[in-house]
């Protein structure tokens, strides 16, 4: 009996705290933006870099008085849901967003989650910005997903082309983790490389994500002596180890990936061996970063103790949502209006020097504008930081 009373008391206490947590907010009307992604477990870093960049930006906006859309100034609240990289949870998360009356959600971070939430998002009028590449998400009849970054089938060809022209790369090898996302990205990369006339010398070596020693994995790849080694869809955790093993096995060529990486992780994990490693990043290199980008990095670092370079690309989704809403305030509750605005929307890119713009692209990949135009900044790692190799545009 006593035990039961105790549990009841505990439950009451817990729910009270929960209520307080949600009710304590400022005077401005609140605009809630959702995030559904993975912030715990093995892939936590993908979602956390997303969530934190959103929270940083939201706190910044709120601190400076809010965000004006139409005639109203809103405080921005980020509502995050941890889907544990489980598509079933991701659906629950999207339902939760619908429940909160949210129409704009960033995430999920992986293919299966992004595909699974589609029915919920479409039936509840939610626009969502996944970091997943399957084309079926963005092609008609799918309507509500907007690719939040540059897809590997877009960045890959640009990188390969550059390397063919500048570095004389002729042969390429691919290696991928034995999981849906990386394998799909590898297949896309192989197709792109073949189309460009590169010779693919190895494309079927895979590794388990929990591999601790990549030497045996890489040995057969190295034997095929490629000029370029592509780490398809590599997670930031695996990248330094793969680079290190490849270099220790005597690999002299170029190593590249089409996902975003973190320079700190590379420094710690591979040190100088990572020099020359090519990856895709946002506009954070000194020559490209606008003052606003630098302030963002500062605020992020202050708020969470340490910056994550993966956030360079992830800062954009929220900005796109807010800017588009500003361009058409009716879209606050009307997703159709948002979709209509997307076709013509254009605004200056605050995070990048020069005259880059925020706009929606994707006509050539998806047949409709369902992708944010993030500048395709190809970085190269050198002595602890990224340097810009070249900048390209996606249509």
């Amino acid at each position: 009996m006593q035990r039961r009373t105790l549990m009841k008391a505990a439950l009451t206490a817990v729910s009270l705290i929960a209520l307080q947590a949600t009710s304590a907010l400022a005077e401005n009307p609140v605009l809630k933006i959702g995030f559904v992604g993975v912030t715990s477990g093995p892939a936590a870093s993908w979602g956390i870099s997303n969530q934190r960049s959103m929270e940083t930006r939201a706190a910044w906006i709120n601190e400076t008085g809010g965000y004006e859309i139409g005639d109203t100034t809103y405080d921005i609240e980020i509502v995050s849901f941890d889907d544990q990289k489980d598509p079933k949870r991701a659906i629950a998360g999207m339902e939760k967003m619908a429940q909160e009356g949210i129409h704009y959600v960033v995430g999920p971070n992986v293919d299966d989650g992004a595909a699974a939430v589609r029915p919920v998002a479409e039936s509840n009028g939610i626009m969502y910005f996944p970091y997943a590449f399957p084309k079926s998400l963005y092609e008609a009849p799918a309507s509500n997903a907007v690719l939040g970054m540059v897809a590997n089938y877009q960045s890959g060809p640009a990188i390969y082309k550059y390397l063919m022209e500048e570095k004389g790369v002729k042969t390429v090898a691919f290696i991928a983790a034995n999981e849906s996302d990386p394998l799909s990205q590898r297949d896309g990369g192989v197709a792109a490389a073949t189309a460009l006339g590169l010779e693919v010398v190895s494309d079927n070596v895979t590794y388990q994500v929990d591999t601790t020693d990549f030497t045996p994995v890489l040995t057969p790849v190295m034997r095929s002596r490629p000029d370029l080694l592509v780490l398809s869809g590599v997670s930031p955790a695996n990248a330094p180890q793969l680079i290190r093993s490849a270099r220790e096995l005597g690999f002299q060529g170029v190593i590249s990936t089409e996902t975003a990486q973190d320079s700190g992780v590379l420094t710690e994990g591979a040190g100088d061996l990572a020099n020359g490693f090519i990856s895709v990043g946002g506009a954070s290199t000194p020559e490209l970063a606008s003052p606003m980008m630098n302030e963002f990095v500062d605020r992020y670092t202050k708020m969470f103790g340490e910056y994550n370079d993966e956030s360079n690309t992830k800062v954009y989704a929220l900005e796109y949502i807010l800017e588009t809403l500003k361009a058409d305030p009716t879209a606050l509750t009307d997703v159709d209006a948002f979709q209509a605005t997307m076709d013509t929307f254009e605004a200056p890119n605050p995070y990048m020097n020069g005259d880059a713009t925020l706009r929606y692209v994707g006509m050539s990949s998806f047949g409709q504008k369902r992708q944010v135009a993030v500048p395709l900044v190809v970085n190269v790692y050198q002595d602890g930081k990224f340097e810009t190799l070249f900048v390209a545009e996606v249509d």
Partner: protein
Amino acid sequence: MFGFTSKQLSGVAIFLFAIFIGVPLLIGLTGRWDFYFTLTSVALLAIASAGVWLTFYIGRINIGQGAFALIGAYVSAILVVKVGWSFWISLPAAGLFAALVAVLIGLPILRLRGVYFAMITLVLTQVVTLTALALPITNGAKGISNIPLPSGVSIFGIPLLPDFAGMENTKLAFYYTACILMIITYATLYRLVNSRLGHLCRSMQQNEELASSIGVNISYIRIVIFAISSFFGGIGGAMFGSIAQSVYPSSFQVADSVNFMLNCFLGGLGFVFGPMLGTLVLYFGWDLLFEFGKYQMLIYSTVLILIIRFLPNGLLSIRFGKGGDK
């Protein structure tokens, strides 16, 4: 009928009333529409967990239910998308296929006991995930997406089941479907456990040698039970595929297999309805703690540890005191 006491019957009536009328009413009143999906998930996961519980009943720790759920999801998806079957026919087909696989795999592995069986089923989950990644029929890494919603079924022009695609609110339809399936599952489970087969299972759980000395064909019953268990897994998985309208190799993985097992432990292995309650608490608990943001996992796991620390025989053991009924 079935020898229920009036107390049991009224309990069942209250339960049915609660899930079919009470829950929709409450959701309508509070406006928490998101709970429909959560509760639908609970119902479906509880179906798969019921299977795991059943293998516990013959004394086997089953960490392979994720494999059968994935098999079920793929079979249904392939039948619907590539062969063009109605979902409602593919659903039992998915269960049966999972059961068939269980028979084939069960023949060699059901001889194993204890942690050995647990481990081999854990490996099985990995094998099925990797197979799904490698096979062409499953579409490999790309998975199967854009699965159509269940279509209507009618016999002689009388609509038996409505067309989900034409519905305003599929949430409610899926909720009712899942609940009906769950009730059938647990009714089956209850009858099974309280019929002769159940008694034989219990005798095997306690002592396989003695059971075979009194003439119980233990290898046959093991297979039958494992097949039924996997049938439940297949059904649960297929239903999920239909709700998500997509299936990926990662739709069910080792973590799911482990969770199914934990649901049974948490609810209590000695109680037929244990896995249902365990699933509700484990799955719904996570959702409720959503407000705590980055401390969600910390609180969730702490509560879990406290429960098992103070109720090591499962939640339902509160009612029956220490030692429970078995």
